[in-house]
């Protein structure tokens, strides 16, 4: 056997974050998106705000500047619709978070890859069907002769068909949840996936019980996802028309329906005023979030 001579040299490999740049002017990449948003999102927003102070003029609008549109909102039954929509949005978002969080937790920490794929499909495939069709299907299910009532009566839970299933607040909430639940699930899921698991080990290692880890580590680190989920839900519901149109009874309209009616009568200044109020409310929400929860700090990336 020949003499074997070996030499190991263990230079402790130091892993460093390498920042790879593509081309020299990385910053230029943001230009198309910024231009697009400036042209087609920010300018219309400012126009809407400006128009809210105009007056009707034939089928269009014109100065002088006036507060008349805002007075109309407060003095007619427009305001209750706005407040009602906010209430519906808050409640639906709350319910969605309560349902989505445990599901997201399951996705992130419990499910294996196979279960993830199946669940992901279950949450996304229904969305290839038009929302209108889905909502009509829901209406058919919830009606007096719908499948829910048939089963309830068949099982003897009720003698008469249940009336409050359709054209009520219940059906609105159900319709909105059916439409938007995935939008609250995914951001929370992604936030949970992004948390370094070793932080949970560190918590346990330092003597933390499971609820300590949940309250002081997992939940705070999931907040960016929870906030994003809330914003998705909230913004969507503030502009929703279909669910209320198809599932709500008379007088149960949301802001979206009201806006459409106002635009139908060519009262663009009033429509602008209503929209401006909604925008102001959203800005107020974000500002409050910043003051009380320091939302902006949640978006700074975490060191791994």
């Amino acid at each position, binding site marked *: 056997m020949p*003499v074997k*001579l070996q030499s190991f*040299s263990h230079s402790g490999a130091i892993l460093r974050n390498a920042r790879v740049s593509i081309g020299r002017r990385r910053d230029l990449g943001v230009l198309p998106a910024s231009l697009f948003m400036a042209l087609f999102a920010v300018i219309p927003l400012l126009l809407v705000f400006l128009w809210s102070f105009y007056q009707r003029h034939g089928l269009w609008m014109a100065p002088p500047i006036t507060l008349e549109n805002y007075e109309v909102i407060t003095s007619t039954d427009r305001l209750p619709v706005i407040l009602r929509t906010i209430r519906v949005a808050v409640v639906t978002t709350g319910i969605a978070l309560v349902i989505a969080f445990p599901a997201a937790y399951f996705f992130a920490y419990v499910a294996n890859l196979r279960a993830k794929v199946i669940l992901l499909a279950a949450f996304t495939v229904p969305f290839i069907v038009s929302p209108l069709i889905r909502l009509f299907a829901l209406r058919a299910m919830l009606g007096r002769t719908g499948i829910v009532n048939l089963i309830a009566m068949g099982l003897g839970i009720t003698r008469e068909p249940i009336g409050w299933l359709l054209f009520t607040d219940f059906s609105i909430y159900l319709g909105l949840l059916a439409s938007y639940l995935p939008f609250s699930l995914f951001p929370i899921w992604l936030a949970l996936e992004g948390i370094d698991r070793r932080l949970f080990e*560190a918590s346990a*290692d*330092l003597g933390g019980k499971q609820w300590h880890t949940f309250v*002081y580590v997992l939940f705070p*680190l999931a907040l960016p996802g929870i906030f994003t989920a809330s914003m998705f839900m909230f913004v969507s519901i503030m502009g929703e028309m279909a669910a209320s149109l198809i599932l709500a009874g008379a007088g149960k309209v949301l802001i979206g329906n009201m806006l459409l009616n106002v635009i139908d009568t060519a009262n663009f200044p009033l429509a602008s005023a209503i929209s401006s109020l909604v925008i102001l409310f959203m800005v107020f929400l974000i500002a409050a979030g910043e003051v009380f929860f320091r939302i902006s700090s949640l978006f700074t990336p975490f*060191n791994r």
Partner: protein
Amino acid sequence: MHNKNSDLFDVRLDNVSKIFGKQYAVRDLTLSIYKGEFFTLLGPSGSGKSTVLRMIAGFEEPTSGVIYLGGEDVTHVSPNRRPTSTVFQNYALFPHMNVAKNVEFGLMVRGIPKSQRSKQVSEMLEVVQLGDKAERNVRTLSGGEQQRVALARSIITQPTVLLLDESLGALDEKLRKEMQSELKRLQREVGITFLYVTHVQEEALSMSDRIGILAAGRLEQVGTPEDIYYRPRTRFVADFIGGANLLTGIGRRVDDHRVEVRIGEMKLHVDQASATIHEGNEVVICIRPEKISLGPAAVGMENQMAGSIEAELFKGVAYQYQVRLSIGHQIRAQVPARIEGSEVLVGWNSSDAIIVE
């Protein structure tokens, strides 16, 4: 069950094995770590050293065997009920908390009153020299500072054993040297048993009271740094620590303290009283590069042969040479001064060579 050796040992592993899938990560490991000791588990990646650490911390349960901490059987005890604390490889600091809150965490979950907590935290931060950084966001700290936060966060819980998982690995060379002495200082200051895991032999040699060498899930040797370095028991240890020269030949015991090893025509001698040598069997001898002399310095040494220099490497404090021996083998020699010419005399003393398994 109370262990009779509990006064002596903080950590005791009794025949511990861990199987992942069908693979043994750790196999039949028996190991005792003394109270207040700085013990290092040293091994290449994949040797199972991190698994051992995770089993002691409670993140993994052994497939078989028993783990004692401070005399208590903790084999099936969850991590939050164990008197251990881990300094993770990436530190695992809570990114949403500032320095003080990170350090405070272990006290908070123990329900210690707020006023007492802040007092202990500021004391602890002084110990790790971060007193002025209490309110800083941990994300804005340098690697060395993060490391000190992680240490403070663990030590403040007064663990029986502090487990350090390649904790210096992410630091640059200079900082690592500084933190090595910092760690030693801290360990003396707080008097806690340290169990350090690393693949860097130089770290192990400079910091540890004792070292355990792991290879493929088995403990190869346990001993003081000097033991491990000068008296490696196995070929693996000799090679892994300091890259020793290994030569294989046919052994024969000459007398009570001398063994003769024949490689081809060449007869080498090794001073070794302990090893049992069966005549005619293959033995492996190990010679450290710095124990080999070249040129005039080799004159008069007990083992001598001709060699030719194939490569030279300046190492600062010494020169390292790759030498082709007349018997055909290549060795490494580390000498204090530069050697002129390429044909040299190579020599070493019989007492500087050892026989390894």
